[in-house]
Each structure stands twice: as structure tokens, then as C-alpha cells.
């Protein structure tokens, strides 16, 4: 099999997009102001604390010739974006109740509310079911879709990378409502079909209409006159359809991304699948298919084996090694740095893509939030949940690391909603954890 770094040629979303922009009212600057987008990226099993958190709060780069020390090893791949980086330490997931810490870690991460009692038994604690509320991305989606000025074709898109093929509390992060988990699409071909299937089908249809007309004429000529009428009518419908297709203003204004064929869903293909999904994600933001997206790498308790980094063990197994195991710590650092690299690649692709109908790049109008179900794997801590933000979509003040005094993560969820314009949202998830409302991050 040919391995190419360039897994996917994106014919459109960047260069090819430009000529169409002027034609599309929803893409040009409107009364709604500049577009804001939110992309939430999930990776599992906690981080290596001392390789992840900046030692001190404050700006990453001070004015003048002297720079602060380089970013911690895990965040190092994001160095190119450190001006647009905001690292939030001291945000805790305080939700208690049924379910083990991985389950609550992912199930309450975006919902901010307890899990229902249920029949999924974790390694500790009582069994649980699904989350009892909707997740913040879906809350924001609902808000945006309710207003024609901010509504998009899908509202939100849920991407995954190697999410195991069973639905349980550990594999679901996004909830449309209580007991309504949304399955992420982790097959890029399936996602392509969702995004472009209709368009591709129409193009394929259009490409065969000449053949069809030719055969129709031939068959009609061989029929008695009484029967020819029906085929003639059919031929006329084909011609009308052809005209309709060629004058059709489809929602897709850019050339379709071209996916490399033949990539199967297997552990070893994770890097390829990740890049394919990122490419589809960037294209769908550029096409304004959605303003909110999630990208879920594996699941809580995720067990990828990153052989391409020279690591044979599964990630979750490694995360259970004592912190004194230097080899395991080193491997976990490499694993988490790999995720950071994918986040950086996403940021780079967004930065390379001009904002349709607006100023700057997609990254100027998009915030990536990279998070995790645990603060640390070994202790299964819900303290200091990793929250790393990249980009300018939410208007937060970036280029810094902020250390907060152990605030509940519900308040961060509220900040996301408010920054996306949903300022009427006073409480989210369990109201007891919403304290003083959204965090001040601007």
C-alpha cells in the first residue's frame, strides 16, 4: 500500500472557493456580524501534568527581545500558534453521581450534568446510563439554527477518529438531550457522503444524461407510434432535468474534496483518518455547513496503539502506569504531543483557508477547544481538566496561560455559549455548578 503524507487533495475549500464567494448571500458579510465557529477536539485518558501545563501563568511571549521559555513538551507542536493559544488551568469537572470517572469524564464534559442511573458498570462506583442533559455544542447549535442569519446546513457536525463500534457511556460525548447521545461519524467516507453525497450524486447523474438521451432516442425509434409518445415524454423530462441541474445553485460552492481511496478503519490508519477528517472538517466550515463541530479521538478509556510513534502499548494501559514509570510518562507525553500535532494541523489548515466573504482566515473566526475526560490518567482526577483553546472565533484573549482557582467547568461551558452569542444562557447543566456565571476570558 502506498503511504503518502498527502492523504487527501483538497481541490476546493481553499483556492477554488474564491470565485464563488460573491454569489452567495449567506457567505457575504451580513447584519449578523462576522461568523463565529467552535470546534471541540477530544482526546482520552488524561495528560502528563508536568509535560502539559505551563509552569507559570501569563503571556507566552513578552514584548521585546526576551521570550518566555518554550511551551511544555506536549504543547510544543502548537508553538506556531502560541499567539492564538489560551491554556486554562484550574478548571475542574465537579459533577458527581453514578458512573466511574471515565464515564463521568466524557459524559459530563460537555453536558455539565449528572449521568442517569443505568446498567453500564465501570471499574468503580455505581453503574450509570447516558447523560441527563444536552451538551453545550448542541445547545449552541440550537441557538444558532434558530436564527436564519446564523443557521447553517447542518448546524453541527460530529466527527470521530476510531471511535469503537459500540454505544456506551464511554464512547459518547455529544448529547442532543437527556438520553440522546449522538454517534460521531468516524468513517471519512461516510462523512463525505453526508456532506457531499447529494452533490456528487447530482454530478454523476449529470454526467450520464447524454448517454441516457441517446439510448432513449434509439429505443423510441423502434416502437410503434402509440407507444413512442410515452418515451418521448420521458426524454423531455430528461432534458428538463438536465437544464435544472446545470442551473442549480447547489449549497456546495467549492470543488469536492477528494479522499484517498481504500483507507480502512484500523488502529494503524489513525494518522490518515485523522487528516482526512480534518480536511473534511475544514472544508465544511469553509462551506458553512456548520458553525459548531466536534472531533472525538477514540473514546474515554481510549486504547490506540501509536505504533507510528514507536509505541506498542495501548494508551489507556500506559495511563495506568505509576507516575514514577519514566518510560510510560515519556510515551504518554509523545502520545499527547501527537494529539497536539493534530490540533496544530487543524489550526494550520484553518489559518491557510481564507474566511469566505470576510477578512482574514477561518482560524480568525474559529476557536478550537482541545479537551480530555481526565486531568491525569493514573489518578483519574477530574481536577485541572485540560482545556486548550486555539484561534480567534470566540474573541478570548489569547497568547497566554491562565490559572484559575479550581472553578467548575460548567462556567467555561457558559463562556463558550456567551462568546458564540448565546448570551441569554444563564445556567447550563447542573445549575449548582454555574456559580458566578461565565468565566471572564476576553
Amino acid at each position, binding site marked *: 500500500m502506498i503511504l503518502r503524507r498527502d492523504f487527501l487533495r483538497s481541490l476546493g475549500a481553499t483556492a477554488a472557493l474564491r470565485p464563488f464567494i460573491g454569489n452567495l448571500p449567506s457567505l457575504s458579510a451580513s447584519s449578523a456580524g462576522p461568523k463565529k465557529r467552535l470546534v471541540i477536539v477530544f482526546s482520552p485518558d488524561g495528560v502528563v501534568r508536568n509535560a502539559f501545563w505551563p509552569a507559570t501563568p501569563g503571556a507566552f511571549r513578552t514584548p521585546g527581545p526576551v521570550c518566555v521559555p518554550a511551551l511544555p513538551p506536549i504543547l510544543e507542536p502548537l508553538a506556531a500558534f502560541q499567539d492564538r493559544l489560551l491554556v486554562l488551568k484550574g478548571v475542574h469537572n465537579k459533577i458527581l453521581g453514578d458512573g466511574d470517572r471515565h464515564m463521568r469524564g466524557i459524559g459530563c464534559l460537555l453536558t455539565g450534568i449528572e449521568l442517569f442511573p443505568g446498567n453500564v458498570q465501570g471499574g468503580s462506583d455505581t453503574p450509570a446510563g447516558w447523560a441527563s442533559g444536552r451538551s453545550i455544542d448542541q445547545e449552541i447549535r440550537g441557538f444558532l439554527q434558530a436564527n436564519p442569519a446564523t443557521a447553517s446546513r447542518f448546524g453541527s457536525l460530529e466527527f470521530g477518529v476510531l471511535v469503537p463500534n459500540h454505544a456506551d457511556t464511554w464512547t459518547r460525548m455529544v448529547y442532543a438531550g437527556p438520553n440522546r447521545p449522538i454517534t460521531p461519524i468516524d468513517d471519512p467516507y461516510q462523512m463525505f457522503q453526508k456532506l457531499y453525497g447529494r452533490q*456528487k450524486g447530482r454530478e454523476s447523474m449529470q454526467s450520464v444524461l447524454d448517454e441516457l438521451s441517446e439510448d432513449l432516442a434509439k429505443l423510441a425509434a423502434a416502437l410503434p407510434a402509440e407507444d413512442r409518445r410515452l418515451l418521448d415524454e*420521458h426524454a423531455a423530462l430528461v432534458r*428538463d432535468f438536465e437544464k435544472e441541474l446545470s442551473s442549480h445553485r447547489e449549497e456546495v460552492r467549492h470543488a469536492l474534496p477528494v479522499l484517498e481511496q481504500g483507507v480502512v478503519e484500523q488502529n494503524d490508519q489513525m494518522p490518515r483518518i485523522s487528516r482526512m477528517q480534518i480536511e473534511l472538517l475544514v472544508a465544511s466550515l469553509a462551506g458553512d455547513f456548520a458553525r459548531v463541530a466536534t472531533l472525538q479521538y477514540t473514546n474515554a478509556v481510549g486504547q490506540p496503539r501509536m505504533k507510528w510513534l514507536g509505541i506498542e502499548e495501548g494508551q489507556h494501559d500506559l495511563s495506568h502506569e505509576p507516575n514514577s514509570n519514566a518510560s510510560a510518562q515519556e510515551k504518554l507525553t509523545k502520545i499527547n504531543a501527537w494529539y497536539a500535532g493534530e490540533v496544530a494541523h487543524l489550526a494550520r489548515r484553518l489559518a491557510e483557508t481564507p474566511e469566505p466573504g470576510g477578512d482574514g482566515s477561518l482560524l480568525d473566526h474559529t476557536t478550537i477547544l482541545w479537551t480530555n475526560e481526565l486531568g491525569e490518567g493514573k489518578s483519574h482526577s477530574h481536577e485541572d481538566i485540560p482545556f486548550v483553546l486555539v484561534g480567534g472565533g470566540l474573541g478570548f484573549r489569547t497568547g497566554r496561560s491562565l490559572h484559575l482557582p479550581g472553578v467548575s467547568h460548567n462556567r467555561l461551558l457558559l463562556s463558550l455559549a456567551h462568546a458564540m452569542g448565546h448570551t441569554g444562557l444563564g445556567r447550563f447543566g447542573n445549575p449548582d455548578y454555574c456559580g458566578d456565571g461565565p468565566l471572564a476570558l476576553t
Partner: protein
Amino acid sequence: MPSTAMRWLPPVVLALLQACAMGGEQSGLAIYRTHCQRCHGEGGKGTPGVPQPLAGDLSVAQLARSIDETMPEDDPKKVVGDDARRVAEYIHASFYSAIARDRNRPAREELSRLTVRQFENAIADLVGSFRGRGPGIDDRRGLRAEYFHRRDFNRERGLVYEQVDPVIDFDFGIEGPDPERFEPNRFAIRWTGSIVPPETGVYEFVVRSGHGVKLRLNDEPPDRPLIDAWVKSGDTIEHRGTRRLLGGRAYPLTLEFSKANQGVDDKKHEPPAHASIQLLWKPPHGVLEVVPSHRLIPQRAPPTFVISTPFPPDDRSIGYERGSAVSKEWFAAATAAAMETADHVLGRLEQLAGANRDAPDRREKLRAFATNFVERASRRPLDAAAKQVYLERPFAAAPDADTGLERAILLCLSSPRFLFREPAGPSDGFATAARLSFGLWDSIPDPPLLEAAAKGCLATSDEIRRQAERMIADRRTRSKLRDFLFGWLRVDHGPELVKDATLFSEFSPALAAELRSSLELFLEDALWRDGGDWRRLFLDDEVPVNGRIAALYGLSLPFDAGFRRVRLDDGRRAGVLTHPYMMSVLAYSGATSPIHRGVFLARNVLGNVLKPPQEAVAPLSADLHPLLSTRERVELQTSGVACQTCHTMINPLGFSLEEFDAIGRHRTSELLGETKKPVDASGSYQPREGDEATFRGARELAAYLVGSRDAQEAFVQSLFHAVVKQPVRAWGPEALATLRAGFEAGSFDIRRLLVDIMVMAAVPPPGSVP
């Protein structure tokens, strides 16, 4: 000789026309013969002197005025006034108007497109042909059940026993199915098999359980079950999902249940709990019920692709669905369905084409698949030119093989070779195969048929007959006949049945659904268990009855008893004629309706053409005539001369069923005010030929109908049209009589009649091949 149109007028109308003619005034026909025919010829066909046929688009009034003023040319005063009007009416109705000309056109087999039903079935079978055959028909019912003493379905380590469970409706209590063999919190059950829905439509499925359950139904992405409540969450115990299913097919079903928790194996958090499970459905015309045993089979069918694209309904203006016209809406639907099908196929190439995503020979496999797909869709091998158009070019022009296949599928499914009945190729064995398969299955030929065609083994009537006999033993034929019979009985649309709550307090929508099931079972038995004798449809005095129906019709059965055949009312029942569902449908909410019953008998059973009433009439209220019986009230209401032309036929037929009330219970008297009045169930019928027949009550009516040539002919014609979707007259003026005679000679076996029809219609009408 009366014209064909006249032939179908009720005798009463003919009698009236004759009476008018005798009353001193000349009929239109007589005037025409006297004054017009010498120039315009018989039937307006023209003469050497006036060769133009007499045809045009003037209205009756315009025509009458023109005749009044100008005709006959040698002496326009000869035909004026009423005479001019009468002759104009005659000319207009008999051959002048567009409608008359159309009616007089000799019947011919016309090119038609697939009906919606045919399209759906053809797509299902086309895709299904790459998945293998489904289970045949046998007597086994229920679902295969595997009981495990573990949390999962590991047969080697955990299977305790297997059995067939007739329905899924269990209450295991706290102990579980068997305390000796299962821990109370440690058991799992998997039911597998297939579900056989009776008709096409949307089915809602409900699984009730407080534990982990998962229902897969005809489920193709395997990770997306119809109902996934494997994670129990909160106190939800009712889980729902809907699927559209085509009737006449078996769909694979797997229902899994586990009482234990999943995830980490830890009994600490499994307190004693009550366990139960129910599998229910709500069929298109039914109510929510436990899925009955007779709709479940333990064998596993391959999945069936059911398109979800909605189509505009087909033309049914002449009594049967046919693909006689194309429209923009239809074309848009067909195109959308083609794209839906291409999506489905492209997403399942591993199972359909054996082509893995990373297979090195994927291109070759997709090409081979495309060839099979296009040839099966076209119902014949492609010649070299067609191969170029349908296969070579789409693949050559596409950037990759998958896109090539997508284009080939889209082209093929939008092509007349797929969409039309049969526009391409000679009238050979392949054409015969398609006629047989669309006739009996509303679908494309299966591999044995195509093989027979390829070998030239579909040339003689005997060969065709053998194939038709083979093909009848198929769920699709059963489904087609079932739907035909429901249409023949005018209950195919699932009429809403609401009955007067004070008079019939026990009658409910649920009971109406049970009665419909009873009729369905009655027809199934009559066709497939009891020899298929058409006469039994009228003469059988047994009714399938379950506990709930029994209570209302004077029988004592346990309330939850399943369906069984019972001789009701001491042998006074007469098959479909008195079936409680039919009697309830053909009635008002509180009273019988002899008119509805009579119209049904006159039209559907005896094949008469009835015109709609000349003016809309509301039924007379019983309250206004409290002392009149229903029969007397109907007689009063329809006593006008304008009504009598049809009601002299309708009423006496309907009256013969007066011994069955508005919910189909037998009665001998009717309560009028304070007094009971005996019911008069005497009736009569004037057949199209021969003497008037009289009968009293349903049994005598049934005995008359089974010997009635009108009824026999009407049934044969209805079945022919429903199956072939072309006019029977296209196969010659004697075709109907021939089939009827064969029906009688074959002891009125409906299945044999179906074969006879197919043997006739499997080849083009004589003389029609250019």
C-alpha cells in the same frame, strides 16, 4: 348488437332506453339510421361520398344546433328541435366525442412504466439478488430463542438451551426464567428469525423492558440498530423505532436482552429486580399489539433494501394501478430513488460485490458487479452497443472505479430499459420472463427465470406454465394476491371504523384492527390452506376468531386466546359476504347500509358499472322515521325515478345482508322504537343474461353468487387487470370468456386461474407484434 359500452350498462338502463324509444318518440339511434347513416356511415365511419369520419369536439348543444340548422343537407327541416338534440346526444356519446372515440378504440397492450409498487420491488430484488435467497414458506412460526446464563451471547460458554418462542411477551419476575439454571441477575436471551409484514407501509416497533435491549430489523449499517437500549439509562422502559417495509417479504430480526449490567463485571451493583420484555408493533392499519406469532418465522432472511423516496401515486382511474403516464414528479422521484439506491450499493460493496475497500482487484470486481446489475435491471443481456453506453463509457470517463459504478447504476436506473415494460429487444424468452415476474411478483425475474430464458426454455405454454406454478409458491405472489383481494373487497385503504358508542360500546379501534386481521387470516387460509377455491370465499361458514373478537360475537373463549377458526352463528355465515369486518365497513356507525353493501355486491362482486348518484344525497335519518325498518327507509329514500335506474339493482342485493348489523353480528330482528321487527332479508338480482334470481339471506346469496356467470367473469377480469395491468380485451374478444371457462373447469381454483392468466399474458396479444 349493443355496443360494448351498452353491454355494461345495467339492464335497467337499457330497459329505460327501450321504453323511451317505444313512447312514440324516435331514439337518437333510429333518427341517425333514418337520416344520417346514408352519408356518414354506420357508427359515423364515413362512406365513399363522405369519407371523413364523424368526429369532432363540439358539445352536445353545439352539435344539436348545427344539426338543427344544417342537417340533413338535402332537407335541414327534417331533423330539428328535440330530434336534433336526441340524435346529437346519440352521436356525441357513441362515436363523435374524444371520450367516445377513446372508448371505441380497440384495446391494445400499451407500453407502460413500472408502477410504484413494481419500482420498489424491482429495486429490492435487484439489490437483493447480490445477497442470496430468503427462506421458503413453511409452517414454522415464532422466533428462535437462545437462553444464556451469562451477560453475553457466547454459545460455547453460556448457552443453556434453545427453543422457539411463538411471541416475545415475557415476565420473568425477580427469579428469572428458571432459578435452577440461571442466576436471577445473570441471564441473556437472543431471539433471531424474520418478520413477515402483511402489507407495505410504515411499521412502528416498540420494545418494552427495564433492562438492556437491542432490536435489529432488516438492519444494514450493523452499528445502527432500529432500537438500541443496550445502555439502560434512567427509568425509560419503552423504546420505539419505525421502519417502512414492503409486504410479502421476510426481514431479518434479532432481539437481544440482558438482565445483567454491562461494562466491568461486578455483581455488587446488581440488586434483585423484576425483569420483563415485550416486542410489539403497530402495523400500517393496525393498533399497537404484541407482534403475533403468525408474522414471525425462525429462519433468517437476508436484508432487503427498501427505498425511502416517496413517489406520487399511480393512476387507478380504471380500477387498477398502472404506469400509463410519466410526470415531472414521477421522474423526480425515480431519479431520487436511483440516487438513493446508488448510495446504498456504494456503501455496501464489501457484502454486495465482495470488494473490500483496499482490495487490489476492486476495479475488476466493481466492473463485474456493474455488468450483473445492469443486466438484471434490464431483464436481458446487453448487446454490444448497449454495453458501450451502460458500462464502458461510464467507467472510462470516471476518475475512479467507485464513481464509474455509481454512474453506471444511475444511468441504468433512469433508463427506459429498467423503468419501462419492455421497450427493448424482441419478444423472446427474456420478455416472457419479465412478463411472468412482473405479473406474479411485481418485480424483476429471478435467476431461474433468466436462466430458462437464456436456454430457450420459455417458449411453449407448458414451459411457461411450469415456471408460473413454481413462482406462485413465493411470498411476493401471496402478497400480490392478498393486496388484490383487499382491493377487490374495497378495504385496501384501511377504512377508519368508528361505531356508535352507545349502541356498540364494546367496539373499539383495537377491535376493528383485530377484525381486519381476522379477514386477512380468512383470505390467507382460503387461498393457501384450503385449496384456493374461489367459492369458499363466499360459502365458508367459519371465521377466524380470537378471544377479544369472540366476546363480542357471542362465543366464549379465553380473552387472550389467539386466532382460531370457528363456525359462527350456527352456520349462517357466508365467507367474506358476512365477515364482521366487511359488514362493519359496509355500514354506518349505528345502522347497516344496504346501499353500501348493494353497491359493493353490484360493482365489485358482480362487475356492473354504476354511475355515481345524480345528486349528492344525505341518508335519511332514522330519527325522522322511527317506525321504518332500515330496509323501508332505504326504499323510501331511493324511490325517485332518477334513483331507480341503479337502485333497482343495488337495493335488493344489499337487503339480502340485512341479517347482519352494523358491526356484523347476526340478527333476526331490528329494534324500532319499543318494538322488534323481524328483518326481511329477501333480495334479487337481474343478471346480464338470463332470468332474475331471487334469494333470502346471506347463505342463499352466496349460493347464487358462486354459480353466477357475472360474478365469475367479474372476478376473472379484476384479477387479470390487477396482475397484468393491461386490458384483458387486448388479448382478444374471447379472452375473458376463455379464462372464465378455464376457471370453472379448474374447480374455481384461484391459483390455477392466476397461472392461466399468466400463461395467456406471458406472450404479447396475438397480432400485436410488429
